[in-house]
């Protein structure tokens, strides 16, 4: 948005307008997170004992690796499912675009908790999905769809899809729709035209989407708690337990610190590999 000079103070106006949001972020986000992270080093007494604890008890490292693996598994699944939807939204008729936008937004009408409980009911051993599959003879015995990785991925992917579809859509909208026909007239088969022309041009959207999914997923705790088993315990749940049940803010802070460091490290690596420019553009 372009704002003109306000009261002759060129440029100051727009910056002032950012202040309320900055204040909210400071009070509701930066301060509490900072305090939590600080407690890793100060609670119950100053020192590195919280980090030493994390290192000495294998369960913490195990859960951390688990968390990264689950997030890493959810990311490509979500991207692949989102890609054709975003493509249809970007290059379909206005009617298609309106309909798909509406459908993609429907999940936001209900809370994450309600949706996750609904997913529990749907996926359980004697749930509607298993009953249907058995009755029409696709499977002989009910599939284990819940309290395992499948359950976590199903639940996570459905909540994350909109967050990938929209950035993908906005980057695909900027792709000139005549590029693909142009490539075809030059002798490229549809697959080669896609790989050489369309896919590289949609990379910024893919990277933004991947980043969003991966980071969100690292901090998930409702979905693994409801849809996962003990083997799908994620760092978010541990942090929640430490604070909620054990009151040990120091360990929670240390876990948060490590989670943040891992997130930053992995993002740095990802962007080193694919190029930060792709996301920024």
């Amino acid at each position, binding site marked *: 948005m372009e704002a003109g000079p306000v009261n002759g103070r060129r440029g100051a106006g727009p910056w002032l307008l950012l202040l309320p949001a900055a204040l909210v972020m400071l009070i509701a986000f930066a301060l509490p997170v900072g305090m939590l992270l600080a407690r890793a080093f100060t609670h119950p007494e100053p020192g590195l004992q919280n980090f030493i604890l994390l290192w000495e008890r294998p369960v913490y490292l195990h859960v951390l690796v688990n968390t990264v693996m689950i997030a890493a598994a959810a990311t490509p699944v979500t991207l692949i499912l989102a890609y054709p939807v975003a493509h249809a939204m970007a290059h379909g008729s206005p009617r298609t675009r309106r309909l798909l936008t509406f459908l993609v937004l429907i999940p936001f009408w209900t809370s994450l908790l309600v949706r996750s409980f609904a997913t529990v009911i749907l996926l359980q051993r004697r749930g509607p999905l298993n009953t249907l599959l058995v009755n029409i003879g696709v499977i002989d015995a009910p599939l284990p769809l819940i309290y395992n990785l499948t359950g976590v991925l199903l639940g996570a992917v459905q909540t994350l899809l909109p967050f990938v579809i929209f950035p993908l859509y906005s980057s695909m909208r900027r792709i*000139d729709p*005549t*590029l693909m*026909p*142009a*490539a*075809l*007239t*030059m*002798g*490229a*088969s*549809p697959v*080669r*035209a896609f790989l*050489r*022309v369309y896919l*590289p*041009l949609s990379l910024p959207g893919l990277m933004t989407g991947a980043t969003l999914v991966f980071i969100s997923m690292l901090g998930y705790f409702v979905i693994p708690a409801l849809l996962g088993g003990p083997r799908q315990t994620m760092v978010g749940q541990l942090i929640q337990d430490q604070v909620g049940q054990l009151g040990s803010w120091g360990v929670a802070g240390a876990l948060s610190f490590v989670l943040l460091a891992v997130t930053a490290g992995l993002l740095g690596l990802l962007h080193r590999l694919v190029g930060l420019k792709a996301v920024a553009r």
Partner: protein
Amino acid sequence: MTLPAMGDPAGPILELRGIRKQYGRLAAVDDVSLELRHGEFLTFLGPSGSGKTTTLMLVAGLQQPDSGRIILAGKPVDRLPPYKRDIGMVFQHYALFPHMTVRRNVAFPLEMRGTPRAEAERLVSAALAMVGLPDHGDRLPRQLSGGQQQRVALARAMVYRPALLLMDEPLGALDKALREGLQLEIKRLHREQRMSVLYVTHDQAEALTMSDRIAVFDEGRIQQIGTPSELYERPATRFVASFVGETNFIPGTVLGRDGDACRIAVAGVPMLASDRFSAQPGTRVTLAIRPERLRLSAAGEGVPAELVDLIYLGNARRYVLRLPDGTEWSALLQAGMADAATLRHGDAVRLTWEAAHATAFPG
């Protein structure tokens, strides 16, 4: 992919037979037939929505016809996807790949054809030199001007020497001065490279400048196909007369025949015109006469009129003439025509023309 099959050089490179394409209830292309000769530059000219782009898409294979046949270099290509037809296409908005340098763009069709690398490098350099951009290969498309981008698109569509080059309003996004420069350049490339070209425009001056032949489209149909002078001098329909060049449309009534010509009453004065239908006496017709074909004299035979305006154009003068019934005609006279130069506003004049230069259309 191999080199273009040359077929019989005397035969057509492209043949359309009764092509039809329907969108819902609208016939976007309606029974279009034509032949494009080897090395010919044929232009589709017509108003917006007349089916020019759709016809080009059908030739390219980017759309499927509902009926009809498309024969390229002697082979039916109706069932072939675009990437198996031996064509090149230039789009109005260039359609350059924004993530590839100019060289990579031009190399793309060669790469798709598996041209050996050294050979491809040589062809790309030659193509860029051909369009006057030998030193721009390492730039990205967005670092070039619109005219330069379209030159790159031309190089990319010609570098693999397709049997047929399709261009859909390639100059439509450029300003006038640039457009005229590139018109001449495309003509030059066409001549030097001996390409067969299908070109689309809705600019009649561009069509007249560039084409060997023009197909005039209206409502999905070809109204007339012929050389620029054929269209201009002998328009087949009233639509063609109005769309190509400037025309006076003058109402009259058929009186009878006079040899090859037709005797017609115009503002009560019997005059001669040519007709393409055998008009019966009493039929109401419309005459089409080009402004530069009207002759003015101060007295004598002809249709009486009053000179209401005189516009000096440098190399010519335009005379606006009003007839007793109130209709206004326009006449164009080259500078140096002594007899008309003395006329003034308000003068009474007589208008005449040669029978061959007035065409009568029904209605």
